[in-house]
């Protein structure tokens, strides 16, 4: 396998780009694997990678109904941050951020993680105090976090709406180590990394059934034949409930909703940071990609949907929010908007857990937040599958937390999935 490096880029430039290998193989599925991961999205691929790397397991298949990275991997606004405060979430997302920081080196694939700072705008003293609790918690758990006053914010981001905002900006909460990454590259990097360890990534292979015998899963039935497995992990955000039913397992505390994402025409650098705000019932986040497009988004479409198509009310809402904080965006043109389906859970928090079936494991319920969670999700899911027990960090990432009354809801929005956007 040709290593990715400036040297090899140079060499291939001279020699006509002939020296590059396939980034991943296109293997035929074998009859049996030690572990089958369903879903070659970011989390499934990362799980396979860490199973191989951290736990030395090589006999793994990742099966994917379409093309790898074709779900929410390709439909998100690429924000990476760890500004969570609830027990469990705090350390999980921090671990994720640490993995992000060295991910390009670890994968030998430039995922373009840029720690360009994540700036949450503040509009009232009450909001500042509520946010301070979160950012103080971050500081007390060894994560850099800052509250900026208005002067600092104006210096750092001079062209926000400081003059005519309906909700005047009074400052910002900032995580400098947060930022954005190139979403497709993350999928491809993990796929390449896993493939190099011998993991079979099997695309165009839809799971049509889950075979169970004696309380264990024995195989997944696919459009490319049955694939036997000693252990099976589900990582199919958006379609978790359907797969869960295939495994004969009833209901989950999940609803599938869709979220739109937006990108503008490419522009010369206009915004160096990730800027986020939520006030007056609006919710909005924006950054600029390396290609120059403004990448932004807002709320869910507010109704349950499996359709990967958005509707206009949210387009309108997001445009309102965009120009309300960056008034210069009025003349900037929207190039594309599209939508992805996601598992919205009852408390806005994920599941990485064992299931009622002994050798079946669940990774689901990522709500909005799946992209930033990718490395840690793969890391802890791999650990769970390999060792058949959850790491203490993720002990409340189970479905049973609702019966226990454990609340790790960062928003306090209550058991209504659409409110956890």
């Amino acid at each position, binding site marked *: 396998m040709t290593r990715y490096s400036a040297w090899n880029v140079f060499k291939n430039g001279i020699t006509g780009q002939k020296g590059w290998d396939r980034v991943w193989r296109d293997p035929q599925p074998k009859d049996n694997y030690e572990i089958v991961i369903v879903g070659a999205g970011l989390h499934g691929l990362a799980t396979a990678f860490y199973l191989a790397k951290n736990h030395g397991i090589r006999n793994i298949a990742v099966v994917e109904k379409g093309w790898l990275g074709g779900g929410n991997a390709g439909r998100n606004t690429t924000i990476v941050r760890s500004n969570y405060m609830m027990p469990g979430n705090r350390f999980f997302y921090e671990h994720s951020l640490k993995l992000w920081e060295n991910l390009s080196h670890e994968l030998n694939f430039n995922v373009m993680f840029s720690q360009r700072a994540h700036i949450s705008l503040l509009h009232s003293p009450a909001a500042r105090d509520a946010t301070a609790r979160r950012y103080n918690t971050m500081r007390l758990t060894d994560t850099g976090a800052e509250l900026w006053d208005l002067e600092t914010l104006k210096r750092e981001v001079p062209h926000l709406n400081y003059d005519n905002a309906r909700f005047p900006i009074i400052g910002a909460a900032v995580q400098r180590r947060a930022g954005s990454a190139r979403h497709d590259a993350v999928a491809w990097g993990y796929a390449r990394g896993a493939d190099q360890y011998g993991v079979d990534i099997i*695309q165009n292979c839809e799971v049509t059934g889950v075979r169970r015998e004696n309380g264990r899963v024995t195989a997944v039935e696919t459009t490319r034949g049955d694939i036997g497995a000693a252990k099976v992990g589900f990582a199919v955000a958006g379609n978790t409930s359907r797969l869960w039913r295939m495994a004969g397992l009833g209901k989950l505390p999940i609803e599938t909703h869709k979220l739109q994402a937006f990108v503008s025409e490419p522009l010369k650098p206009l915004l160096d940071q990730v800027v986020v705000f939520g006030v007056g019932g609006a919710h909005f986040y924006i950054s600029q990609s390396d290609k120059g497009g403004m990448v932004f988004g807002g709320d869910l479409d507010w109704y349950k949907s499996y359709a990967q198509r958005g509707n206009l009310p949210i387009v309108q809402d997001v445009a309102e929010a965009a120009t309300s904080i960056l008034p210069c965006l009025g003349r900037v043109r929207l190039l594309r*908007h599209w939508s992805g389906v996601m598992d919205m859970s009852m408390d806005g928090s994920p599941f990485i857990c064992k299931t009622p079936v002994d050798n079946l494991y669940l990774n689901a319920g990522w709500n909005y937040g799946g992209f930033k969670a990718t490395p840690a999700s793969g890391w802890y899911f791999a650990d769970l599958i390999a060792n058949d027990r959850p790491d203490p960090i993720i002990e409340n990432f189970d479905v049973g937390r609702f019966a226990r*009354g454990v609340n790790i809801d960062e928003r306090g929005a209550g058991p209504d999935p659409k409110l956890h956007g």
Partner: protein
Amino acid sequence: MSARRLPSGGRIDRSQVIRFTWDDRAMSGHPGDSLASALMANGEQVLGRSFKYHRPRGVMSAGVEESGAMVTVGEGARQDPNVKAPMQELFNGLTATGQNAWPNVRFDFGEVNDMLGRFLVAGFYYKTFMGIPPFEWGKGTGAWMWYEKFIRKAAGMGSASREADPDHYEHGHDFCDLLVVGSGPAGMSSALAAAEAGLDVMLIEQDWELGGSFLSQTGSESKNRCADMVASLNNAGVRIMLRTTAFGLYDYGVAGLLERVTDHLQNPDRYQPRQRFWNIRAKQTILASGALERHIAFGNNDRPGVMNAAAGRAYVNRYGVLPGERVVVATNNDSAYKCAIDLACAGADVTLLDARSTLPGELAEQAGEAGVSLRTNTVPLKAKGRSSVNGLELAVVSGSGWRARGAESCDAVLVSGGWSPVVHLMSHRGVKPKWDSENACFLAPSRHETIQMAGSAAGYWRAADCELSGIAAGSVAASALGKKAKTLVLPPIGGWDLAIKPVYEIRVPGKKLKCLVDPQHDVTAEDIRLAHREGFVSVEHLKRYTTLGMATDGGKMGNVIGLALMAEALGREIPEVGTTTFRPPYTPVSIGALRGRSVDKHFRPLRRTPMHDWNLSHGATMTMAGLWHRPWYFARLSETISEAYVRETETTRKTVGLCDVTSLGKIAVQGPDATEFLNRIYTNPFAKLPIGKARYGIMLRDDGFVMDDGTTWRLSETEYFMTTTTAHAGKVMVWLEELLQTRWQDLKVHVTSVSEQWAGCAVAGPESRKVLAACVEDASVMDNEAFPFMGVIETKLQGGIPCRIARISFSGELAYETYVPSDYAAAMMDLLWPKAEQSGGCLYGLEALGAMRIEKGHVTGAELDGRVTIEDAGLGKMASPKKSFIGSALRSRPDMTREDRPKLVGIFPKDRSQTFNAGAILCSVDQVSGLGEGWITGVTHSPAKGHWIGIGFISGGHQAWAEKTAIAADPVRKGDVEVEIVSPHMYDPSGEKMYG
């Protein structure tokens, strides 16, 4: 290219001159010109630079697919980057500049990238820039972020202004029976057919003229035909919108349109919006959106002077601009013949290369008559020249491929590689386009009954067939809506004399060529093959890896070629490779238009209390509370906010204070079952609340956590007046409606929001009774015995103002809340305030209100954050053990009843002179790290205590911390402060003042 303006012909008005500037140079054109045609007429060749390689680019098309002439229009705050010059109508005073180049597009240092092109192939950046070269040493993101700065500067196309956009925009809503998109022969005929059958029709055209392909035809026949149809459309009452793009098709026949209202005007009426975003709800939709011509990937096929054949024809016939004197037209289908003929007739020396081995008889004859020289089996191989074309190397058929043979001297190359019907809007609806190999194009079969394709968008190439298909579609739409319409037999799709020969790329052995597939993103044929070698073979991977089709033309120019090349590399057919899904918008839409008027102060409506102006005229400084503005404090003279609220608190506790509390939610609960209803939604009993009494209540959510709190007043046997918090007013109202309409349908209860009907003023402090007694018509109603704590009366203020008063207290003082119908709010304040002033009282705002409630240990939204149980909030005794209520089942889950849960407490600084902040984390002294033991939700200076106090939560509550010191850790602001944990009831815990 040596384009020139023809002395006559076209649809421009040579009698008038339009002056504009290009890169600070004065130029002129005529009404009817696009910026592109005017620039060509002025002899400009290099109009842009490509995204990555900074290759010189000229006009490549006459429409939305433009990938060369991307310019910046306007300046200062009105700078508009990435404008496609063919789509910009010329107007007096227009200023346009080149972009993505330094110092300018004609001479650009960035062009060095073109020489490094062999290194800068698709996806090279994934393989390097991670660490220190050459072997990517290092850790972390530092190296990447260093490189990234330069990459970002190089990327992007035009620059957006950083100034606020000074223009305004608006929305529009409309409804129709039939929406027709596109006004070519098919669109006009379908609109006409439907309108004549009695439908209410809207016809949408992105151009500034109706006619579509009619506009680039010659001859009076088509001109007259077009004019006749326009006249008929007007007669038939068709609603026509010009300069309007249907950019997206959404669920239920809803179309998003962008109307460019003033973008073509020098001095627009200042009351007109710049653009309008329309939501159109149509019962039927016909997409007569036309087809776009494809190019062919040959060497340097992006040089200025290479353009689409149909564009060449448009420039000659519509704009009176001859693209070149010696023109090579290269085609693989019939359509380019008309172009060749029209150019030859206009005086150009034209050679037509047809990739096919035979010529289309009649067309070839006409071409020959017009003086066009014709060659079969010949294709372009490589354009010569750099900033303009000065020749073309040719290739001829050789077996199944090509070999180089000869060259032509020329100054323009017009290419037709076939046509791509515009199926984008159908694709928005989830219809997968299907490859039609006979016509070498993707077609979108009409799957939705309410959406039809017509004309060339449906694959009809002849104008007459397009008209027929339009009439047929219009008739189908009319029939579907119950109108009488004839049914037509449609001709077969296609319609060329001689079949197209699919040609996507010209390669000859042993010759290295730069063949652009997606010129806007500099995606080359080699990039496609590299993606294939590396395994990015799925079309979606191909798109993302090479960025094919992701530029501002949305792949209109290059997608099909890219797919064809991938199919070839895979040894498969195009249908097996498939195509990506088109996403809206069809063409880019300004964010300003999408937001309409909802910006700046109109981002969200401002909600004002009826005392808003009264408060302001009495010195209020306002603050936000949701959409409301509420008085924050009433500063006197030079008081700071702290001085003001401390004074307001002290005055209120000593004498009396008035506070606007209108923003609290108010709900009328009426009906024979109202009592039972309240008893189910509140945790505490309501069954025995007497008429004329109020009760504080707490509502839980289904999951047992606290939802909201407030007082509910019993006005009669069957009527209650409920108050909610400001923040949750809407949510509670919806919740009550849900319960009544879905779960408890047997209850006869109506809920109606009366938040807007009643204006409220809190009158608090020892003198409050006296003040109110002086304001009511009958002072005796205010007697202590007649009107005890939690009593409610309905009476009149002086002047006959009806009012309802409850003796309730958020401040902990003797206090009342007084409500009057909203239009009397100012009158109420004018009554109360002089009396309060006489008693030495004050007006107070949210800050003082907060101070008093913290002293008292009353909870608000800062405490009730959706994760708090009723016990956490110290209100456990409010939960009746004798009845079931919403949330009573799930509030007893194990983790919610843990002893060590954080509970509501009061907080004093150990050193009473110190302050601390809300948002600080409470930690034990020996461990000021980790997640802490609790947190602080509210802090105030307490005049009653003479020092700062706080309210918050800590594990186990104040009993568990009785003798211990805690640390209020606030590293993001001021660091650590030692604190004592006390009971949350820090002021008058026995409530003597309230009851007094």
